[in-house]
């Protein structure tokens, strides 16, 4: 790991460790925007971390940005950091002016399509996008669409009446946005390479893998702590072999999620779809197993809203769904494998990973 990576990760740990406790999470879930946390995250430069250097970014690098995002995942930060990072990157790459505040991106559901038509001097949008993260609190939505077969980016502030609020399992905003007939006069540009619809899905998947890895690490830490503290039959439950084996499996899944996240981070600049497919799939699978094993070790207390475990496990259950669930990426990877053929399979694996 580079020194830059450690530095950014350290400062992320300090920042989220100080400003992102369970009360912030609970308030956010009740609809309170975590302004202090968001300001600190902006001030630390995390939201700009994926803006390429040649587009005026700080040149932090994808690996470092991914490290900070994993820490945000570890602390269950209830903010659209991944989304803003992506939106800023896409805006900068397309040469569109920067937009202040929290941002979000769409479409994130691969079934949704947005249309963009000329209407004289302005543009008219069409379609509906589902489950847009934090749409109601975002200063702007960065949309990926096409016009005349060409990939286009559009940035717009969405009028409140176009938004139907929804949420994911962790209570984070996931809103449906109706675009039909919305007129945009500015902030429309051809999408450069790496900013197409497929790219958005892949980039989002790569970032969700980081968040999953971070949340999994915090689940392992909580579980180890609890297994050392909770006493039954006169000894800490962590002394029972059955419990130890569950935690050993949990550690294996946590390590797998981290390795998958690293694979996605390494593939981020080129958005290598195979590495990202493998990463999101494996991280998603780890998310399921980590949550199940941790809840087993925690007994009833882990099943309460009061105990912190749910902050992480409800996010794991949500994030595995987003930007393509396991089945989506599995099929893509499987089709790539048969295209490589039996004799080409190994070369495909070593090249991607």
């Amino acid at each position, binding site marked *: 790991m580079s020194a830059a990576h450690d530095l950014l990760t350290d400062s992320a740990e300090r920042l989220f460790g100080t400003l992102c406790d369970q009360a912030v999470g609970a308030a956010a879930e009740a609809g309170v925007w975590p302004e202090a946390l968001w300001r600190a995250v902006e001030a630390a430069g995390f939201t700009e971390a994926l803006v390429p250097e040649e587009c005026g970014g700080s040149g932090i690098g994808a690996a470092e940005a991914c490290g900070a995002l994993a820490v945000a995942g570890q602390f269950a930060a209830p903010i659209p950091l991944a989304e803003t990072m992506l939106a800023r990157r896409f805006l900068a790459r397309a040469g569109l002016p920067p937009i202040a505040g929290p941002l979000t991106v769409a479409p994130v559901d691969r079934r949704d399509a947005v249309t963009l038509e000329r209407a004289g001097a302005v543009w008219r949008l069409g379609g509906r996008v589902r489950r847009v993260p934090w749409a109601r609190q975002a200063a702007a939505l960065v949309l990926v669409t096409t016009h005349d077969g060409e990939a286009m980016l559009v940035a717009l502030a969405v009028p409140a009446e176009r938004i139907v609020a929804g949420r994911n399992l962790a209570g984070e905003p996931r809103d449906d946005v109706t675009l039909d007939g919305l007129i945009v006069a500015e902030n429309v540009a051809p999408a450069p390479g790496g900013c197409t619809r497929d790219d958005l899905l892949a980039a989002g998947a790569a970032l969700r893998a980081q968040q999953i890895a971070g949340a999994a690490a915090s689940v392992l*830490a909580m579980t180890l702590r609890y297994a050392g503290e909770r006493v039954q039959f006169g000894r800490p439950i962590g002394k029972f072999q059955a419990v130890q084996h569950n935690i050993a499996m949990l550690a294996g899944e*946590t390590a797998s999620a981290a390795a998958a996240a690293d694979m996605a981070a390494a593939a981020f600049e080129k958005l290598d779809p195979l590495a990202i497919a493998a*990463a999101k799939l494996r991280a998603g699978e780890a998310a399921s197993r980590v949550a199940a094993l941790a809840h087993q070790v925690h007994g009833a207390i882990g099943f309460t809203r009061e105990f912190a475990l749910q902050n992480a496990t409800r996010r794991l259950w949500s994030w595995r769904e987003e930007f393509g669930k396991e089945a989506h990426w*599995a099929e*893509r990877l*499987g*089709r790539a494998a*048969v295209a490589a053929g039996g004799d080409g399979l190994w070369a495909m694996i070593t090249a991607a990973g």
Partner: protein
Amino acid sequence: MSQLTFAPPVPAPEAEALRAEVRAFLAAELPPVSAPDRLRLGGRDPAFSRKVAARGWIGMTWPKRYGGRERSALERYVVQEEMLAAGAPVAAHWVADRQSGPNILRNGSEAQKNFFLPRIAAGECSFCIGMSEPDSGSDLAAARTRAAPVQGGFLVNGRKIWTSNAHCADYMILFCRTGEKSEDRHAGASQFIVDLRTPGITVRPIIDLAGLHHFNEVIFEDMFLPEESLLGGLGDGWRQVSGELAFERSGPERFLSSFRLMVELTAALGAEPSERAAMALGRLVAHVMTLRRLSRSVAGMLQAGREPAVEAALVKDLGTSFEQEVVEIARTLIEDEPAPGSADALAAVLAHLVQHAPSFSIRGGTREILRGIIARGLGLR
């Protein structure tokens, strides 16, 4: 509380250059895919091992003065994984390269290093592992085979079991008791390098459930070992054997030795598999890719001079579980039954693996023992 961390594999351009060389070598030297030995995975072919040695790929990380090439652990990793992925017949040199040689390099006398290491590196000297006994499996410290001090050396009596390749290897590294039983269960054990032609040894084949002969029972009756066959310190056996097991568990074989199955499965699914089959295959590929990263991370730890015993146990546990799953998934994706000796490569390789999968999570430390090691590494015991 300690969490295990696996740093991303370090980029190693020299290792990637080597990969191309290994692939070219394998393309030229491997028997055709349909050869039954290759489908049996990791067959034994001393002539092939000597060719690998001639390329400098056995003992390749060892000092040059012992016949090594002083290359990095990451380069060695590339050679290992390419051999496994291709199903190369590596059994004649694998154990010596992986654990016996490193054990000798670390603990052996100068004379032992000078004698054995160059021979191993030349592919001329193979080893087997004499650890398990009838009453001492997971509980290795319960070993009863005993080397009693006598004039000029030791007299050994006892039995080893499940010894892979004892019937064809040149030497065994024997783990046995040399001291009295004491409070400390790990005290009083030592390791010896045993020439398998020594009088007093009987090797009896044990046939596995599939009908193959690879492991054996090895009986020692008043076998005399000269003093210089002691490996390392008298009474240091437990420490040495633990280090050896860390080497044994650290490689990619526990998730790549069945890679031929994925190759044959991919070929059999054809260009237009069903959605279900594509998803199942894609999932397996994702697992291999992730395991490879973890495993290369362990190689990086070895390269950095660390002893990643816990990390290796974790990757082995994940790897064996995966390998057992591959077999079960593959059989649900094809119409044909597994068929031993079939001309159909997939049916044949599946037949082999269905019957051998149970051993994956037993040999080299059972799943339960590995999970205990991981739990200890996490501070739970």
